[in-house]
């Protein structure tokens, strides 16, 4: 997929904010000293009066976000995933989830593709942490176009949500205005490739890897179904049950710990509704380290090749 156009999902988020800000005057965007990295700086330029800079105070930002949202605004609060979901966790739980505040926690730099900054900045736990919170929607878009579409839907809906966005460019999967793009719905999985031999359920950057893996598998005579499970919560149970029944083997692929993330969410459904063999591709219970994103994905087993191996198991 070398010649495909690549855009980081955080870039799409930044563009979405500027567009959506024109549509909704009650949109407030908050930063914790990372406006350039989170791509909220475009919104700051366009609507300086609706941009709240909190400085390096992620916990304060999340509680302030709750206060602003509960006063009648929709709030996008951003930091690195490590700090948005990690540092501010209990505040997100009690002040945002429990209060059902209309705060969209938009976290960038999730996962190992953070790269050279190393272990303290690579989070593999954020989806797990957010997923256990009642009333919190959890969305992990695969590319720029789906980021914008899912954000628009979610920002139009009242209540808390967590978006996990990436640092590095990802290939374009959906085309704006296409039939596929029009079928993207929060809470509904999208079947990108058909097949009944094995189902690959992926999200985030692993969707592109899953498609590449499915292509490789096809050459080996294995028809893989590829499902973009962009919404981890509420999870599309029907899509999982169908995959289990029709394919008999599910491979989950995520840039996250296999403990508590997408793989676990899928397993929770199959275990209770339609037991099925699951092989999980993701971070296997260890911290990361400094390195180039591609090197790290390879070392920690999150490449198309790893998905192929898992599918053939």
């Amino acid at each position, binding site marked *: 997929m070398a010649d495909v156009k690549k855009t980081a999902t955080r870039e799409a988020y930044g563009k979405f904010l500027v567009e959506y800000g024109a549509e909704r005057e009650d949109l407030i965007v908050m930063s914790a000293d990372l406006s350039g990295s989170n791509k909220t700086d475009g919104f700051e330029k366009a609507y300086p009066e609706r941009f709240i800079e909190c400085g390096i105070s992620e916990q304060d930002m999340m509680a302030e976000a709750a206060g602003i949202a509960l006063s009648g605004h929709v709030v996008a609060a951003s930091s690195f995933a490590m700090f948005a979901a990690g540092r501010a966790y209990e505040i997100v739980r009690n002040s945002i989830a429990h209060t059902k505040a209309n705060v969209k926690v938009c976290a960038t730099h999730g996962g190992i593709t953070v*790269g050279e*900054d190393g272990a303290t900045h690579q989070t593999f736990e954020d989806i797990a942490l957010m997923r256990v919170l009642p009333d919190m929607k959890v969305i992990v878009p695969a590319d720029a176009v789906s980021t914008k579409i899912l954000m628009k839907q979610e920002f139009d809906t009242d209540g808390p949500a967590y978006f996990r966005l990436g640092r590095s460019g990802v290939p374009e999967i959906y085309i704006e205005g296409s039939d596929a793009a029009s079928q993207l719905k929060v809470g509904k999985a999208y079947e990108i490739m058909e097949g009944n031999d094995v189902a690959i359920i992926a999200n985030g950057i692993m969707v592109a890897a899953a498609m590449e893996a499915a292509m490789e598998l096809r050459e080996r005579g294995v028809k893989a179904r590829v499902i973009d499970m962009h919404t981890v919560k509420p999870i599309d149970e029907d899509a999982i049950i169908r995959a289990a029944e029709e394919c008999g083997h599910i491979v989950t692929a995520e840039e996250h710990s296999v403990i508590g993330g997408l793989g676990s969410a899928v397993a929770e459904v199959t275990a209770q509704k339609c037991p099925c063999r699951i092989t999980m591709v993701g971070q296997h219970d260890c911290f990361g380290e400094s390195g180039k994103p591609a090197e790290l994905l390879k070392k920690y087993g999150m490449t198309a090749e790893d998905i192929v191996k898992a599918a053939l198991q």
Partner: protein
Amino acid sequence: MKTAAELNMIARDIRIDALRGIHAAGSGHPGGSFSVTDILTALYFGVMNVDPADPCMEGRDRLVLSKGHAAPALYATLAHRGFFDPEEMLSLRHMGSFLQGHPDMHKCPGVEISTGSLGQGFSAAVGMAIADKLDKKDRRTFVVTGDGELQEGIIWEAALQAAKYGLDNLIAVVDWNNLQIDGVVDTVKKVAPVDAKFAAFGWEVFNVDGHDMQALLDTFEKALKVSGKPVCIVAKTVKGKGVSFMENQAGWHGKAPNDEQLAQALKELGGEM
């Protein structure tokens, strides 16, 4: 004991190697590394009791780099102090290197605790100083924080605790460069006056020019004599100190120089390619 002039020469070499590392890595944080270089040099070469041959020596002084993104400055300081070969700086941030993007205590000798998430190092240092009091260990804990970092509430929670326990074995240094990522600290979320705040929190406070080596040495000497309360040294610094085009530029917080910029910077610092 080395003179301030000698320490200045060491600091120059530390800046050069820190930047060579950042350049080789293609990423990293030169601005905050250069503002803190003279402080680290004064500490490791003129103040702290450490032994590069025995990084875990019983009774050693400990330093926590709470602003962990300045790892290149810490690594180059440790290297020149003899903890490892300065040429290792070229492996900075590379896959498999012990010189991680942020300090990793399990990988790099001389690093007391892993940092990188701002604010936590400060609290951890308070914990270390409390432990030394409990264990009746006569040694010091030094902690270096950024000024933007002071916006983290955890710092002030720990500051109260340090005063409560009268931690005169704890010396905090604030790298007061008045810049963070999103701009000027005073504008992003003003923390000043830092000296008055720490004083109000029950700390003994000293102000110093963070690039005046003799003044730094003198201030640490005074700080070590304080008894009954923790000490905060507010060191006025210049972000990117030593390289004209990096000085006072928020844009050089987290960016590696290209080949040309490296050559220019090394020329200004007095090093060679």
